Structure formats: structure tokens, C-alpha cells
């Protein structure tokens, strides 16, 4: 919402100082987002009087050479392209070389002396657009009345310089959508006197028979409708001050009548409308529900099919406006209009909001109505519109004004008194405010103080503040006027309450830290994915967004992997050859329909409508990180190691990799592992399935590194791991004895079973057995490999082992491996 500071000063009848006003508004809840000084570039522009005009001697374009008097004996010949140069004696506005004017795109540029079609012009005669005073670029500004040559523009027209404030008006403050309301708030916040402007009496006469009209309200969505007829000699161009005022507020001037309705809206915040009385069939307006087959051509030129629930203003034969949103084409004023039918009405906020949404029309009028205009404003706005039409357009009122009210309307009932307790004010704000301060603050805002008894004061909120409905709303007003900067910093009494709505925050955080420590970068991807990338992964989403921003973001992810691999692919497209990414995020299962009663039960259990799981996604691509040694492509054991160290960092547990069950579609069937943690399924790690890879590369236009490893884990399975379960062991006092052995064994036996057999055979003194090398080669029997395994023996308590003992246990271990797996020692 743009606010003209000059207008505010006019309404306050005093200038409190720009900085004070900006600070007060911002602190008081009407944040000033931007302050723009306008018209400061007009310093050197002055009034020039035309002395003579001649055609440009050589130019083919319709240029003229205008000699102007600049006062004090100075005169100048300038080149001018406008077709409306007045006859000698006419007054125009002259910008000399060095002045700044606007180009057609709205940027300022400096005028320089340069030849125009061969003749040097030392300045220019300016249009509204060029001076930033209006939206008209169809010719230069010609003054209505004579002004002395050489008079500076800013002297003759001081409003040419102004400050425009951009206010962020929150939806609860419809009163601040007009200058009057903003001025009232400033006065209350800065403790300045405030009075609404009064209207000059305007000329009125009896209505003739053809000037009679009637208004009928049939819809309960329109509590109040004020109307009157005025006559004009025809619409005209508004005076420069009005055109400039509207321009500065972001609206282009149209004609004297429309400009006056906009002026009233920017002043009072109440939209009004003017019809051409002669275009209203039967001179009768009815506010009623739209009929199912009706259409309305709105002022923006579009024909709209009206819908059930729409409220229209209609004459005897047709609709002439969508209530509170936009008027109709054909019934509005045009240049030949002489008889005006003025409307200032109140429409129900939610009805207007629904209409504006349904028809996708967000107008200045609907913006205000849907926030709640003062229901008592229509007669006031009508009077103000009459005042301006009389002043600006020379309008004369014909007959009496109407003010039709639906007496049954809630909006028009006197507002219920509200009780505000001094003690409650202190409890909420944390600062003591006396009853008399409370009364003063509220009175300044237009509240009526009704009575005062002990702790309680009874107050009535003004009708322009529809947002004030309860005691707490009144307390906010008291706080605003008192000033939030007067509220001190109090130390919170620590209540130390544990959260009731719990999630897996701590586990997510620990998991992220652990994976980052293993050299993976964290990614955060959108929860929605495209169907296409899901199809690449042979996945389907079970829950979709009803109103997505685009079809690319319509499915809630059933897995982190598609989005995570898309993220990993971004840098690959730019030549990055390695990728190490993880994400800890939510994946979404099926949506469950619930009744209202079930919803509350589910909410209390801290569940939502969709089954959500936290997953860990893993992507590793390219070569292993090393230097000064042979480059080695990553393999699945790099990823397995990442999971193993994750488990070890979170606590202690045994990760077992096997190939049980059907692998997910994204997993290479020969290079995947199902991981279990202490018997519970943790997830899958795999080389990306070549089919998935091929589809993904095609759809994403990327070539992934030769090795692409992916994995996904369920975070909840890690929940049992905890530092708390760890037990310290005193360091052993006896040295360990180590024996290495190389075994030739069939590859069909998992390596883990070889280690298991050795440990079984070796007995209880064998505390560790680890594979430290694996060899596959042509000289070995077909289908076998050689595993080098290191066994560590340690005595219980302080028992010292002897070589002889350990050799015996080793023999037993080897015998077991031979017996159960056919392993032979190499």
C-alpha cells in the first residue's frame, strides 16, 4: 500500500517529521518497507510562456520550434515533438539541459544539449510521464491558467515533490488501506490531535422526473447501500494535483469522475462506483444473487459467466457489476456522460473474497472489502465523493441521497462492549499500565470508553477496526500505542518441561554428523519429485499434491534416492567425476482417510495423515579418494564400510550383509546387499541397476560415473543404538597373539561363513578374526579364491598364552574350516 506523506501531513494538519512517522508506523505494526522521495529531480524545471511557434525547417517528422519566455528577459527556442503546443501566451513546463527527466520505461536520465534534426535544443517542453507527474505521454503539459514565466515548478506546484511510503498492511488492518486510517494511527501513536476532514456544502437541486432512481437490496451479503444522482457537463480531465496524486499512488488518471472515486478509496479505504444513470435500465439498481445463466462483461473487457453464490448489482434488465469486485462494461461513465449514479455500499467480506477467488479477479475494491471495510462508512464515503465531484468536476446533486440498510444485518448492529482488565494487560504485556493510560490510548484510537469498575473497563471498539473482537485484541492495541520498545527483557522462569510431541531429532542429528565424518556431503532435497524420475527408478508415489506448482513436483517421494541422485547428477553435468552425498529426510507412504474424531486421536499420538518414515539415502560415485597410489574405482564395500562406521559411531551393533529376499528395482541383482542390524532389516546398498541407470541417464541428460553406488536405510532401525548401552573394558594386561592364515575356499561360501567357522573352531580365546586380503587368480582352482585371515588370541584374565596352546587352537580352527567348507590351507 503506497502512502503519500504530503497527503498525511494534509490530514494531520501538521508535519510530525518523516523519521518519527516511519518509526511510529513500523513499531506500531504498519511496517514501512520502503521510503521514496519523489519529484526531487524537478528542481530546475520551470514555467515557460510560449512566444512563437514555427515548423522545423528540415525534419520530416512533425517537429516544431517553440520560442518560450523563461522570465527575467530570458527566452529560448526549443525543439518540440508534441502536437499540443499552445498558442502564444500559453503556459508549459520547461526542463533545461542538465535536468533529469523520465524516459518511457520509467528511468531517469539527464537531458543533454544535442541537435534534434540538425537544430540544438537547450532543453525540452515536458509531458506528465517525463516529469513523473502523471501517466499521460500524449503531448506536453499545458497549464490551465496563466502563471508567471520562469516560476519554478516546485514553487507553483509544491505537491510535485512528495515522499511515498510503501506500507506492509497486514490482513487484520483494513483501516490502514486508506490515508485517513493511516493518519489516525499516526496521530494515536504520536499523540497528535486528529479530526476527520469536513466537506464543503455542494450545490444541490431538486431532481427532475428523469433523474429519479431506486435501490433495492435483496441479498443479505449487502448490509448497506448509499446512492445519489449528480449531474455534470460531461467528464473532463482532472486537474494536475489530482492526476499527480493518483499517479504517485500507482494509479493512472482516467477522467474526473473515475479519478474522484479512486481519490475517495485512497482516502477513506471505501471503494465507490459511479454509473451512467442513462445506461441503467429503469433507473433501478438491485443487489441480488446471480442467476445461473447470467453473464457480466466486466470493465476489464472480459465476459464472465456468473456462478451460484455470486452477488451482483443489476438494473431492470442486466447485471451492471460484480458486488465489491468490479463494475460492468457499458454502464460506467464515458466522456459523454452527464448524469451520474453514485454508489457507496458495504459488502460482506467473505462473499467478496469467494467471488474474487472464483473469478480470479484481485482488484483494489475486492482487496479492501475482503479485509472488512467499515460498515458505517458508505454514507460518509458518498458525501466525500459528492464533495470531490463538486470540487473537481463541477457536479451538482439532483435530489436526495439514499442510505438503504438491512436492519437485520449483524454488521450494522452496535458493537458489543468489551471488558479490558488492567491486571490482564499487565499479565499479557509484562508491564504495568494504569487504567487512565489505557483509557487515553484507546480513546486516541477511536474506542469509546463506556464504564470503569475496579479492575475492569468496558470499551466499545470503533467500526473501522473489525479485527478487534476480544479483550486480547484490545490489549494488543494498548501495547501498540504504549510502545513495544517500552517492554523490558524479562528472564524466563525455567520450567524445564520435556517435549510431549517427540520425533527422531537426536537420531537424525547424530546420523548426519556420523555420515559427514565419513566424508559424505549432506544434501537437502525437495519432498516432491517428478513422476518421470520415479518411473526411472520403477517407483510409484502413493500420495500426490492436489494443487502442485508444476507436474514435476506433484508426487511426494516414496524414497530419497531419485531426488538424491538428481542432486548428485547436477555437478556431474559440469564434469565433476566423484560424488559422495547423503540425505536424512522424510519419505511418504499412503494417505489415510480419517474422520474428525479419529483425527484428534491421531494428532494426540503425534501422527499425521500420511505414514512418514525417516530414511537415510546414500550415493557414492566415481573413484575412491586416494593419492600417489593406483586409482581404484569404488566398490560396494566402500559403501558397506560407510554404514558400518555409522553404526559404530552411534553405538555398537552387528551389521550383517546378506542377499536374502528380492532386491529393490534400483539394485543390481549381483551387487546388492540386504543389511540387517542385530537381526532387524536396516536397508539395502547396491550398485545402481544398469536398467535404472540407463533410464535415469536418458531422462536427466547425464552420464553417471562408471561406478554408481546407492543405498537407503530406515533410520528407526538405528534407534536402538545408544551411547548409554556401551560398557567400558579395562585394557588387557597380557599381550595378544596373532596368527595369519591363507585359505583356499570355494567362492560360493560367503567369506563371513569362513571367518565364522574359524572362530568356532578356535575357541573362546580367539577374540577377533579379520579378513585382510583376498586373492582371485587363474592359477587357483576354478570357482575358488584365497582369503588371508588374521586371528587374534588373548588369554582370559591374566592368563598368559603359550605358542603351543595357540598352535593347537589354530589347528582346530583350520580343521573346522576344512570340515564344514572344504577350505584348504595355502
Amino acid at each position, binding site marked *: 500500500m503506497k502512502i503519500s506523506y504530503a497527503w498525511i501531513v494534509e490530514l494531520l494538519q501538521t508535519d510530525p517529521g518523516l523519521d518519527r512517522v516511519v518509526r511510529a508506523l513500523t513499531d506500531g505494526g504498519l511496517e514501512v518497507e520502503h521510503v521514496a522521495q519523489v519529484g526531487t529531480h524537478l528542481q530546475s524545471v520551470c514555467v515557460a510562456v510560449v512566444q512563437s511557434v514555427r515548423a522545423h525547417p528540415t525534419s520530416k517528422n512533425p517537429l516544431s520550434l517553440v520560442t518560450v519566455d523563461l522570465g527575467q528577459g530570458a527566452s529560448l527556442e526549443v525543439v518540440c515533438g508534441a502536437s499540443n503546443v499552445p498558442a502564444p501566451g500559453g503556459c508549459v513546463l520547461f526542463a533545461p539541459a542538465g535536468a533529469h527527466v523520465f524516459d518511457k520505461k520509467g528511468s531517469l536520465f539527464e537531458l543533454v544539449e544535442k541537435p534534434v534534426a540538425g537544430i540544438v535544443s537547450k532543453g525540452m517542453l515536458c509531458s506528465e510521464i517525463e516529469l513523473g507527474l502523471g501517466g499521460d505521454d500524449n503531448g506536453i503539459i499545458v497549464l490551465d491558467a496563466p502563471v508567471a514565466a520562469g516560476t519554478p515548478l516546485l514553487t507553483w506546484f509544491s505537491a510535485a515533490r512528495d515522499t511515498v511510503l510503501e506500507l506492509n498492511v497486514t490482513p487484520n488492518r483494513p483501516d490502514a488501506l486508506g490515508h485517513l486510517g493511516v493518519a489516525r494511527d499516526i496521530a494515536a501513536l504520536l499523540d497528535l490531535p486528529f479530526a476527520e476532514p469536513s466537506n464543503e456544502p455542494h450545490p444541490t437541486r431538486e431532481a427532475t422526473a428523469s433523474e429519479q432512481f431506486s435501490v433495492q437490496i435483496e441479498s443479505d451479503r449487502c448490509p448497506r447501500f448509499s446512492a445519489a444522482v449528480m449531474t455534470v457537463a460531461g467528464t473532463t480531465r482532472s486537474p494536475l494535483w489530482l492526476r499527480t496524486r493518483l499517479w504517485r499512488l500507482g494509479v493512472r488518471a482516467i477522467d474526473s469522475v473515475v479519478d474522484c472515486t479512486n481519490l475517495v478509496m485512497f482516502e477513506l479505504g471505501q471503494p465507490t462506483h459511479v454509473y451512467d444513470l442513462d445506461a441503467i435500465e429503469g433507473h433501478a439498481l438491485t443487489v441480488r444473487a446471480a442467476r445461473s445463466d447470467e453473464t457480466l462483461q466486466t470493465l476489464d473487457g472480459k465476459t464472465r459467466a456468473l456462478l451460484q453464490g455470486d452477488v451482483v448489482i443489476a438494473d431492470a434488465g442486466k447485471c451492471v457489476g460484480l458486488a465489491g469486485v468490479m463494475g460492468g462494461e457499458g454502464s460506467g461513465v464515458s466522456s459523454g456522460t452527464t448524469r451520474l449514479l453514485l454508489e457507496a455500499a458495504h459488502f460482506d467480506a467473505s462473499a467478496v473474497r469467494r467471488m474474487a477467488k472464483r473469478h480470479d479477479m484481485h482488484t483494489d475494491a475486492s482487496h479492501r472489502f475482503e479485509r472488512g471495510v467499515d460498515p458505517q462508512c458508505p454514507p460518509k464515503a458518498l458525501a466525500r465523493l459528492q464533495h470531490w465531484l463538486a470540487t473537481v468536476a463541477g457536479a451538482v446533486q439532483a435530489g436526495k441521497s439514499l442510505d438503504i440498510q438491512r436492519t437485520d444485518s449483524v454488521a450494522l448492529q452496535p458493537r458489543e462492549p468489551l471488558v479490558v482488565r488492567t491486571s490482564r494487560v499487565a499479565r499479557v504485556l509484562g508491564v504495568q499500565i494504569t487504567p487512565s493510560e489505557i483509557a487515553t490510548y484507546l480513546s486516541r484510537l477511536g474506542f469509546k470508553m463506556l464504564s470503569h469498575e475496579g479492575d475492569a473497563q468496558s470499551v466499545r471498539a470503533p467500526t473501522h477496526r473489525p479485527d478487534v473482537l476480544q479483550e486480547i485484541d484490545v490489549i494488543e492495541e494498548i501495547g501498540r500505542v504504549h510502545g513495544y520498545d517500552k517492554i523490558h527483557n*524479562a528472564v524466563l522462569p525455567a520450567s524445564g*518441561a520435556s517435549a510431549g*510431541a517427540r520425533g527422531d531429532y537426536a537420531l537424525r542429528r547424530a546420523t548426519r554428523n556420523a555420515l559427514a565424518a565419513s566424508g559424505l556431503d549432506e544434501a537437502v532435497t525437495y519432498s516432491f519429485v517428478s513422476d518421470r524420475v520415479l518411473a526411472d527408478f520403477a517407483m510409484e508415489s502413493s*500420495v500426490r*499434491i492436489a494443487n502442485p506448482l508444476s507436474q514435476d513436483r506433484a508426487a511426494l517421494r516414496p524414497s530419497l534416492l531419485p531426488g538424491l541422485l538428481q542432486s548428485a547428477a547436477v555437478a556431474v553435468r559440469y564434469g565433476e567425476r566423484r560424488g559422495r552425498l547423503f540425505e536424512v529426510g522424510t519419505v511418504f507412504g499412503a494417505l489415510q482417510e480419517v474422520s474428525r474424531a479419529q483425527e484428534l486421536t491421531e494428532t494426540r499420538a503425534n501422527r499425521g495423515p500420511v505414514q512418514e518414515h525417516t530414511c537415510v539415502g546414500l550415493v557414492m560415485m566415481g573413484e575412491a579418494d586416494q593419492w600417489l597410489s593406483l586409482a581404484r574405482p569404488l566398490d560396494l564395500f566402500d559403501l558397506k564400510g560407510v554404514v558400518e562406521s555409522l553404526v559404530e559411531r552411534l553405538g555398537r551393533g552387528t551389521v550383517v550383509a546378506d542377499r536374502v529376499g528380492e532386491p529393490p528395482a534400483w539394485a543390481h541383482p549381483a551387487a546388492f546387499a540386504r543389511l540387517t542390524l542385530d537381526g532387524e532389516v536396516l536397508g539395502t546398498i547396491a550398485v545402481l541397476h544398469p536398467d535404472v541407470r540407463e533410464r535415469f541417464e536418458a531422462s536427466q541428460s547425464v552420464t553417471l560415473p562408471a561406478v554408481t553406488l546407492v543405498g537407503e536405510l530406515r533410520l528407526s532401525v538405528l534407534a536402538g543404538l545408544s551411547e548409554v548401552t556401551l560398557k567400558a573394558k579395562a585394557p588387557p594386561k597380557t599381550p595378544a597373539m596373532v596368527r595369519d592364515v591363507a585359505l583356499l575356499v570355494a567362492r560360493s561360501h560367503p567369506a563371513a561363513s569362513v571367518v565364522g567357522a574359524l572362530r568356532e573352531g578356535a575357541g573362546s580365546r580367539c577374540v577377533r578374526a579379520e579378513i585382510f586380503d583376498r586373492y582371485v587368480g587363474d592359477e587357483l582352482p576354478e570357482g575358488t579364491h584365497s582369503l588371508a585371515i588374521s586371528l587374534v588370541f588373548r588369554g582370559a584374565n591374566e592368563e598368559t598364552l603359550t605358542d603351543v596352546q595357540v598352535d593347537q587352537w589354530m589347528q582346530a580352527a583350520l580343521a573346522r574350516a576344512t570340515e564344514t567348507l572344504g577350505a584348504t590351507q595355502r
Partner: protein
Amino acid sequence: MEALDAIEHDVDASFLPVQSDPELRAVYARWLGREGAVTLLMRRMPELPGPERKTFGQAINRVKDKVEAAKTVCEQRLREHARALDLGREPLDVSLPGRKPRVGRLHPLSRMMYDVIDAFVAMGFDVAEGPETDWETNNFERLGFPPDHPAMDMQDTFFLQQPDGATGPRALLRTHTSTVQVREMLSHAPPVMIVAPGAVYRRDDDATHSPMFAQIEGLVVDQGIALSHLRGTLDTFARKLFGERVTTRMRGSYFPFTEPSVELDASCALCGGSDPSCRMCKGSGWLEVGGAGMVHPTVLKNCGVDPEKYTGFAFGLGIDRLAMIRYQIPEISLLYQNDVRFLESL
């Protein structure tokens, strides 16, 4: 005896040409090895008559000591020589890269979020969480959003597809973490003192808005909680996060679920308001920390809390914006693209 004298005479000289440990062992063996000259003489000792044997034995021992001493000297000489060689060898090219374990990084949003959470946890807050999908009941109704009110436009919502004819409350992606306020209050009676971090969603997509972003909600409900406590809490938080010199201001605002509603600004930690082209505060001197207010009595009532007995405050902070300010991130979408080259820069 003459043989012994000759040996004694030759011992020292014999070690002089030695240049290595094997040579040293060979020379030593020449005298005291199994077939060494001294050893051979010693073996002949029993042949000598008694008195001579004693004298000879003493002489032998003297020679043996001499050999051992010469060996020690020689060893010392070899060690010193080797040390000199080692110290004088070609120096390392230390500019070659280190063998560094790869450093993985937490996402800037996580880092920002954890700093914020830690600041509040240090003040005694516990961490609460709720689901990212929720019903309109928790996202709007219980928070006192008036139906058909423009306040809804402040939060353009993603709704979830539901089967035709569904009659229950509509499911959506939560537009704010304020849903956790409701869930927390419904889960137990006051006192309540939580922060609730998480992902939230709005139908918005431009340089400063992302359809998914991160928020943290705060909620304190107890007897005797006032706006001054809110101010004190957020002031302490701002100083923890931005530095001790930072001051805060509170100004009026509007949120449907708080009354009074305020915005909290922190003074610019970078320029303190002195630089009109400051990249952090854009010259205003203030940074928006977040929206806040006293929990609306209607919200307390909707969540089963007696607003006459208890009061409370709530606040919400946008983590993306804080991260963008801290790390000077020009566009919010960079946070969700996860380009490794971007992630590694932070």
C-alpha cells in the same frame, strides 16, 4: 706373548677403514670371533704353565677390552656418519598434497538449524517434532485462522489428493511448524517449553521463496508468561547467535494465532546500521529475526489449555533466510540443488 703384542698393536688400526655394519662385524670377528686371533690365543691358554698363564690371561683381557672399546668407537663413528647422511639428504617437497581423509559437510541448513536449536536448548528448551503432512485442523483451525479470511493468503497451501467423496478434514503439507504448537499442547498439560524444527511447504517459488523451506517454532506456556519474557528470550537468543553487541527491537505485526503479534529485529551485527550499502541489513541497520507473539487465548482453548490460568508465547524463525544471511547465499534455490561445488564452498 709377542703375538698378543702384535694384535694389540693392530687393533685400533683395523677398525679405521670400516664403513658399514657388516664390515664392522667382520673386523670384530677377526679378533674375537670363533676363529678370531684373540680367541685362538685364548684357546691355547691351558698349554701355558701356571704363573705364565695368569700374566697371559691378564694380557688377553686387556686386548679384549681394547677390541671392545675400538668397536664402540667405530659404532659411534658409523652412527654419526649415518645421521649426517640422513640429515643431509634431499629435502621433501612439502608442497605435495597431504593424504587427507575426505571431509564431509553438513548442509548449510542443518548447520544453521543446529546453531539455532543449541542456543534455545541452552536456555532450557526441549526439542519437539511433528509430521510434515498434517490436517487443516492443526495447520489452520486450532490455530484460529478465520475461514475465508485473507490471512490464509499469507500461506498458500499444498493440499494432498484425497479420494473423491472424502469427508474428513483435508490433508496438506504443513505451511508452518506452528502445527507442533497444537500437537505439543494436546500431548500434555503446561508447562510447555519447546522448540520445533522442521521442513514446511508453501506454494511459492522465486529468488527468496522456495516451495519447501525450514522453520523452527518456539512455544512456552506456563503461569505468568508475558510479552516481556518473549522479548527477553529472543534477545538472549539473538545475542547468542549474532554476538553479544547485538541489540533487539520488537514491533507490531499480525499472525492469526498470536495476539499481540510482533516481529523481532536484531541490530545488524556487521555494520550496526552505519553502512548504507551493507550486504547484511541493506542499510536499514536491522535484521528480521522472526515473527512472534503471545499465544492467542482461542488457540490455548482449542488445545485444552485454560487461557485464564495460563499464558504463553510463540515464535517462528525462517532458517533458510538466516542461512542465506550468514553464508551470503544469493538465491534460495541453491540450497536445494545440492550442487557439490556449492556444498563444498561452505
